[in-house]
């Protein structure tokens, strides 16, 4: 056998053993876990605008990073309750800013992986679990007087989110106009006129009543606008400004009108029809 043949066989053998060595190195390397249960609070008297610049698209799904606006007339100002290891909150020129922490920025700069997790103090720390596989949800709670929230929502430029889901709850609004590329969740809201253009994202409604809803649907790559009408949702008049297919829960709507805004043929699927319906 030629010398080169012997070397080739040796290299092939070592190559097959390598993944095991790499795996062992990984097992002994320290992992960075960021705990969502470590919370901090930030208080501000007032804010002209709120901007969430934190983007966790590599670690989290859109619905796992939420900014929740909670109306609370008892708090004298704005109180932000946030996971201190994930984000930091500051007030600059009247704008309440939510950014990734400096530590995360440093980890990302050095290409070090980190895992977003919720550490359960009751659990045995030596116990093997799957915290790396399923990241924990990151939620920022913003409590503010109802008037402040309404003022912020009334101005398109007063609220910005680079990534995630905007969670609105317990609101009674005359108009709601959301034109942003973010997921939106409405819980226990009553809205007279709503115009929602959230790009190819998800609109979730729970115990929410809307008199007139104008919803824009759009598709980008393989994702498109979708709506999840959960328990207690009712929309009296729905106008779909449709540029992509959508599935609707028939019982959640009084009247549905479709206005096509592009030339491509569309599919509107009606699920759960429980009464007589005129479709054309």
């Amino acid at each position, binding site marked *: 056998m*030629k010398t080169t043949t012997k070397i*080739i066989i040796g290299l092939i053998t070592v190559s097959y053993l390598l*993944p095991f*060595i790499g795996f062992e190195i990984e097992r002994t390397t320290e992992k960075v876990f960021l705990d969502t249960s470590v919370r901090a609070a930030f208080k501000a008297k007032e804010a002209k605008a709120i901007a969430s610049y934190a983007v966790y698209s590599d670690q989290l799904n859109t619905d796992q990073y939420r900014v929740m606006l909670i109306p609370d007339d008892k708090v004298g100002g704005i109180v932000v309750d946030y996971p201190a290891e994930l984000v930091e909150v500051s007030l600059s020129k009247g704008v309440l800013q939510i950014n990734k922490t400096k530590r995360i920025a440093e980890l990302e700069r050095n290409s070090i992986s980190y895992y977003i997790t919720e550490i359960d103090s009751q659990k045995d720390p030596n116990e093997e679990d799957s915290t790396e596989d399923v990241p924990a949800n990151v939620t920022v709670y913003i409590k503010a007087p109802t008037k402040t929230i309404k003022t912020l929502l009334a101005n398109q430029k007063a609220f910005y989110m680079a990534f995630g889901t905007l969670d609105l709850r317990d609101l009674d609004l005359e108009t709601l106009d959301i034109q942003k590329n973010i997921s939106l969740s409405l819980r226990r809201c009553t809205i007279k006129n709503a115009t929602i253009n959230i790009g190819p994202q998800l609109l979730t409604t729970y115990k929410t009543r809307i008199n007139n809803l104008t919803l824009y649907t759009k598709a980008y790559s393989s994702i498109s606008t979708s709506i999840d009408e959960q328990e207690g949702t009712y929309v009296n008049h729905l106008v779909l400004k449709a*540029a992509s297919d959508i599935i609707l829960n028939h019982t959640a709507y009084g009247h549905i009108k479709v206005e096509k*805004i592009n*030339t*491509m043929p569309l599919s509107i699927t009606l699920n759960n029809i429980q009464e007589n319906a005129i479709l054309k």
Partner: protein
Amino acid sequence: MIDFFDCKRFMRYLGKLWTEQRRTMFLSAAILLGIMFIIEVWICLTAYNDPYGYGDCVRTADPARTSISFSCSLLFVASSCIAASRLFTDGQQKAGRIQVLTMPVSMFENWLARIVLFVGGYVLVFHIVFYALEVCRVVLLTSIYPNVDLAVQSLSSITSFQHAPLMNALYTLVWYIYPISLFVLGSMVFPRKPLLGTTISVFILGLIAVFILAFFSSFSEILIDTLTLWAAFLSMANLWLSYRRMCELEVIDRM
């Protein structure tokens, strides 16, 4: 005894090889241009067919970006491997091997000239053809889709380390060189049927590797780093082994 390396002699031998292979290489370049032109036209026809997506005033990312990077990277690896397996075509027959052995150049010069011509030369031609077609695509489509961020793509756009350009370039380089080096070595180990012999060997070895890697549920960064480092080492080892194999070349007269 011939010196290990003499620049003048090397250049003359390179010239000789070029003269012998010129016709085949021009033909290969023309075939490559044709294939890549068809790929670009096909991707453009399928990627830009949504009139709504580019009609509004919002700027959109180039929808053909991923398809072009992916298909051209694949074409680059496949065609470079085919070009690399032609490294020792003149040694397929006994007469050819005798000619290689009796050529008044050192084995290193002989090997290096082949690497320069069949690997380096081909990589250069591929890049010229690829970037020429990409520039044409961008120039032609910019006026048609003013809202689309059209940009000349590169063969390194396929990796996921876009935030670190140096890291990206290194990883891409290693994973492009590694398969090519395998076929360079294969052309020396299987001189009679280099493409077939190497492809079958790589397929069998790859299949075993896939079974082994299937044990690991996730490819963590450290595992990928380790494999990339090893691939870089193997690439160098493959090139050195191909040279060593050429030095071991012998003509056996089987009775």
